[in-house]
């Protein structure tokens, strides 16, 4: 097995056993990034020289007996919304031309303290305002969208061009591309991971979190990001755990292959000892209204200055949304805030009866790059972007932790994700369930096949 093919946990074990040096690992991952980048366009920029220097430093520290833990010497990517002192934070936008971050974000500091090696910054849909990341291509099929907005991070991890990466998630922007590229993505509880130094799309909905090849890997990254240090235990036994299976919303207008794979995965959870419990998702009629009512005016507020000084530098899609956001009434924003309170309360009541909810992450697998809408069996037509955000945004509104785990492929060979949503601050539970599930799969942690 070549070093870039190793999961984070396996690479860390090999480094700990002195079977692999951070320099060898970083060289291998950089070579892989160079090999695939021309097809996948995951990175805004690769920092090869800096990465090799950081890897050499990590190797020296480890050789001197000063190991910083499992992330020490592990090469990773940061979504290009995350500030790293001295580097531009482009947000994949011409608006940020000439930008240089004057300080590290807290997450960059914590990863640096853990000894992780920064390979480069990964592409985002411009300013995270979209679900496709048009600059990048899906790691499984270059004719398909990467998903977004953390598309570059997901593609890099899926292709072995980064051992893990960070993304941000305002309506599904970690989980959507993770699902579409067959990797694991965790949106932690709102506020658990500090967001200072991370460019905002919508302050009240933004989250930062890891994308990785396995749940175990995501847990290792979360441990470093929270300062917890030690990953959660998991013995694969789910006896006594209650898994909510939605009767409403999450299986409506979902591709048959996606539904079948997720239902089969929930049966595996039952085989591991969990009890499956039907749940009714509350207030589904208002999910999109709350998401838009919060996100759109907040995004416009963030961009107030540059929308007036350099509007022509925004991509047309983002500019139109930002300008229209100026016309949302304060009363509508406050209604969205109050409806969010209702939704949080209703979800808290629902979650009294279960420990996690298991559901599809997205209703359909990766769309073709030229596909803009999907027609469902009931005859309704939905934009691809609206479809991708439909099942992920409730966890942004409620602030609950949500994990996506690969559960197979559809008839076209494209990956399918299952979403596990827990109670706020109960990351341990969603990671326990996700890890127990992935241990039943022989293909857990696999890389994407060579792009078609």
């Amino acid at each position, binding site marked *: 097995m070549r070093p870039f093919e190793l999961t984070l946990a396996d690479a860390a074990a090999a480094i700990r056993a002195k079977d692999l040096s951070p320099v060898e690992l970083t060289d291998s991952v950089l070579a892989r990034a160079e090999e695939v980048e021309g097809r996948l366009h995951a990175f805004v920029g690769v920092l090869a020289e800096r990465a090799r220097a950081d890897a050499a430093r990590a190797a020296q520290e480890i050789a001197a007996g000063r190991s910083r833990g499992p992330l020490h010497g592990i090469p990773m990517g940061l979504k290009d919304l995350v500030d790293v002192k001295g580097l531009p934070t482009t947000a994949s936008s011409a608006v940020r031309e000439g930008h240089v971050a004057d300080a590290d974000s807290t997450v960059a500091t914590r990863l640096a303290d853990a000894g992780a090696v920064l390979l480069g910054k990964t592409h985002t849909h411009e300013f995270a*305002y*979209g679900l*496709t990341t*048009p600059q990048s291509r899906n790691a499984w099929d270059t004719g398909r969208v990467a998903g977004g907005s953390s598309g570059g991070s997901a593609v890099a991890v899926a292709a072995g061009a980064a051992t893990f990466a960070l993304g941000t998630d305002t309506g599904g922007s970690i989980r959507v591309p993770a699902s579409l590229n067959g990797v694991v993505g965790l949106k932690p*509880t*709102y*506020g*658990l991971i500090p967001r200072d130094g991370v460019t905002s799309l919508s302050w*009240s909905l933004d989250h930062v979190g890891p994308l990785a090849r396995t749940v175990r890997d995501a847990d290792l990254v979360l441990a470093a990001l929270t300062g917890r240090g030690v990953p959660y235990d998991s013995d694969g036994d789910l006896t006594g755990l209650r898994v909510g299976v939605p009767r409403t919303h999450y299986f409506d207008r979902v591709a048959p292959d996606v539904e079948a794979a997720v239902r089969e995965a929930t049966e595996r959870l039952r085989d591991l000892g969990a009890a499956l419990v039907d749940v009714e998702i509350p207030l589904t*009629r*208002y999910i*999109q*209204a*709350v998401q*838009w*009512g919060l996100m*759109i005016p907040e995004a416009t507020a963030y961009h107030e200055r540059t*929308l*007036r000084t350099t*509007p022509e530098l925004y*991509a*047309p*899609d*983002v500019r*139109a*949304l930002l*300008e*229209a*956001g*100026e*016309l*949302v009434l304060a009363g*509508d924003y*406050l*209604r*969205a*805030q*109050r*409806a*969010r*309170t*209702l939704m*949080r309360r209703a979800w*808290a009541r629902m979650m009294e009866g279960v420990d996690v909810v298991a559901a599809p992450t997205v209703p359909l697998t990766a769309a073709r790059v030229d596909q*803009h*809408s999907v027609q469902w069996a009931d005859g309704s*037509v*939905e*934009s*691809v*972007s*609206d479809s991708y955000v439909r099942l992920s945004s409730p966890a942004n509104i*409620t*602030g609950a932790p949500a994990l996506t785990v690969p559960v197979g492929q559809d008839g076209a060979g494209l990956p399918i994700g299952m979403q596990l949503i827990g*109670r*706020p*601050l109960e990351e341990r539970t969603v990671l326990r369930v996700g890890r127990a599930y992935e241990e039943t799969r022989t293909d857990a942690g696999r890389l994407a096949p060579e792009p078609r």
Partner: protein
Amino acid sequence: MPPEDLAPEDLSSQDPEDLSSEDLAPEDVAPDELAPDQAAQWARRAGLPLEPGRTDLVTATANHIHAVVSTLRELDFGDVPPAFDTPLVPVAPQAPGTPSVPEARHEAL
């Protein structure tokens, strides 16, 4: 006509010429929708004069956003406060003298 949805890529492919004000005669505008001249006035009031050629696209986008967000007007909120004034995890009433919820935890909510 307004776009079918808010999909950014759909909007980006929308030719503003296809959204001319002439297509949006007053009788075509729903009672709670903005006409292009109204949207332009609202934008000016917000401090964002719209460049020529952008009014119709922005109007259509704004009306679509409004159609989605205004469904919240169906709800009777009573005394329900906005979410920024409520904790993510319910905090149980505390006995006198017990320490308050740690600041760090509250920040995490």
